[in-house]
């Protein structure tokens, strides 16, 4: 197992994909802080408030008030509803799909290491990668908010954002073995990413309904709400966590089953 783990981490050395995903997170954080400029402009805020629909309701509920608490919460909502599922799914698709793309699948499968160890090692790599992206994102957002001189800083806001973002990341992580399985089945990134995209769309569609607490890809949004959703998040129930863990277990079983019986003939 340790040999597989060492190999999986070594595969990321000089990886451009690693840098690209970091760049995506930083650019997203930069765009988010640009919103601060808009929030500082009373004219823009007035036009948002008068635009109607859920954005106006959110503005009226004070979700767009410019302070550290809101900014940090918006950051967590960004992971939950915007880029978390897509980017973390991409990371998973890359880690599992690159073997096929780079023609190294057969090397891996003919190594004297049990195949499930490779799956486990890859999931550990994915866990470290998405955790690093979450922390980087938090740091970038916090830096951006501080840079624009937003008032109301308290360590508590950052700590809350950290705890919430870790919880959201965990919820998304629990769905990732399914992405890994689709990647192996589809022998590439495309189907996995289409799946992630579809889940994000469905998740956003369910965001304001109670059903979302039973749908793993929407649970993060149900937990922390969405920036356009004035309804305060009602939190998850124990059954939600059971479902999320169940999806993880089923996803792992499918992935291991697939790699154990894989017919790699092109």
């Amino acid at each position, binding site marked *: 197992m340790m040999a597989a783990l060492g190999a999986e981490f070594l595969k990321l050395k000089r990886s451009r994909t690693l840098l690209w995903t970091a760049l995506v997170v930083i650019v997203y954080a930069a765009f988010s802080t640009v919103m601060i400029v808009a929030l500082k402009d009373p004219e823009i805020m007035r036009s948002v408030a008068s635009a109607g629909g859920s954005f106006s309701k959110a503005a009226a509920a004070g979700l767009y008030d410019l302070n550290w608490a809101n900014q940090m919460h918006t950051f967590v909502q960004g992971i939950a509803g915007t880029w978390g599922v897509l980017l973390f799914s991409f990371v998973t698709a890359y880690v599992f799909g690159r073997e096929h793309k780079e023609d190294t699948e057969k090397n891996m499968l003919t190594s*004297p290491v049990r195949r499930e160890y490779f799956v486990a090692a890859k999931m550990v790599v994915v866990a470290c990668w998405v955790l690093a992206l979450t922390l980087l994102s938090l740091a970038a957002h916090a830096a951006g908010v501080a840079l624009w001189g937003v008032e109301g800083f308290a360590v508590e806001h950052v700590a809350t954002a950290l705890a919430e973002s870790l919880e959201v990341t965990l919820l998304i992580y629990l769905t990732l073995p399914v992405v890994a399985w689709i990647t192996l089945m589809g022998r590439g990134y495309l189907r996995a990413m289409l799946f992630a995209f579809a889940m994000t769309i469905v998740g956003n569609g369910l965001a304001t309904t109670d059903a979302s607490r039973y749908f793993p890809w929407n649970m993060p949004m149900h937990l922390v709400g969405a920036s356009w959703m004035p309804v305060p998040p009602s939190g998850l129930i124990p059954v939600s966590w059971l479902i999320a863990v169940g999806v993880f277990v089923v996803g792992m079983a499918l992935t291991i089953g697939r790699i154990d019986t894989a*017919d790699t*003939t092109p």
Partner: protein
Amino acid sequence: MGETGSAEVVIRTEGLTKHYGEVRAVDDLALTVRRGEVYAFLGRNGAGKTTTIRMMLALAKPTDGWVEILGTRMAPNAVRAFERIGSMVENAGAYGNLTVRENLEMQRNLLGLRRTHWVDEVIEMCDLGEYLDRRAGTLSLGNKQRLGLGRALLHKPEVLILDEPTNGLDPVGIADIRKVLKRLSSERGITVFLSSHILSEVQQLATRIGIIHQGRLLEEIGYEELRRRNREYLEFAVSDVKRSAWVLEEQCEVSDFDVREEGTVRIYQHFERAGEFNQALVESGVAISSMRTSEESLEDHFVHLTGTESEAAPETARRAGKRGWRR
């Protein structure tokens, strides 16, 4: 080489079959490879070579039948067997962002090898020294093949399974790989199973050749037959083979010849004395209906077995043209 008849069976397949829908990629394949043999698995593109090798390495699940290597029934997670097998299937894959050395070091770790000098040994053996710090993604196809071979040899395997190992190599590279495999076979007694669709690349190396066509093993040619077929000869079609043999041996003092069942005599030496042999046979009362030099090489035989050249797949024809399908 070639004296492997009683040696331990290292690779055995029985009733090995693989269907893809209606297509029978491999059909009821039974072959055995003994310790120390260099078995060349020859067939055109699409004949079923790669599918067979994939089934051998548990990369594809047989529709029927089984493969046993070193006494282990091959299946996913046949970890003990993989510790003793080195393999390279089709184009050697490598992690493009890692250097040649890093790729080999990673493999060494996966194999659980503590001896770091084994990496240096394969670097030298596969002539990878000047590319050590180059990222694998920037290597030429030929050098990637060398890296793949190095990866396969790293743990000094007892069995080496190679699918078209010379793919993408230039003539010098092909000769180098041949030299490495010969050395491994003679010095370490490694059993080599390699596939190819170019006979000339393997006939100098192989101790046995299996010809596969449309998923079926058509023929296996042993070492002696190989050696005989690979030699040039002068062939007389004669009325009396016994008398011919006597004339050649006693009068012409030829020792290296053989008498064939179909009424021909093949002489493997002194081709410049063809006229003299002809005269001696005629003067001894042997009627000669034809005389020819070796027209059918093993390669011709292969083409004959697997269909006419015009039926060959475009890729086969292209490579044949490039590398000299006929000698």
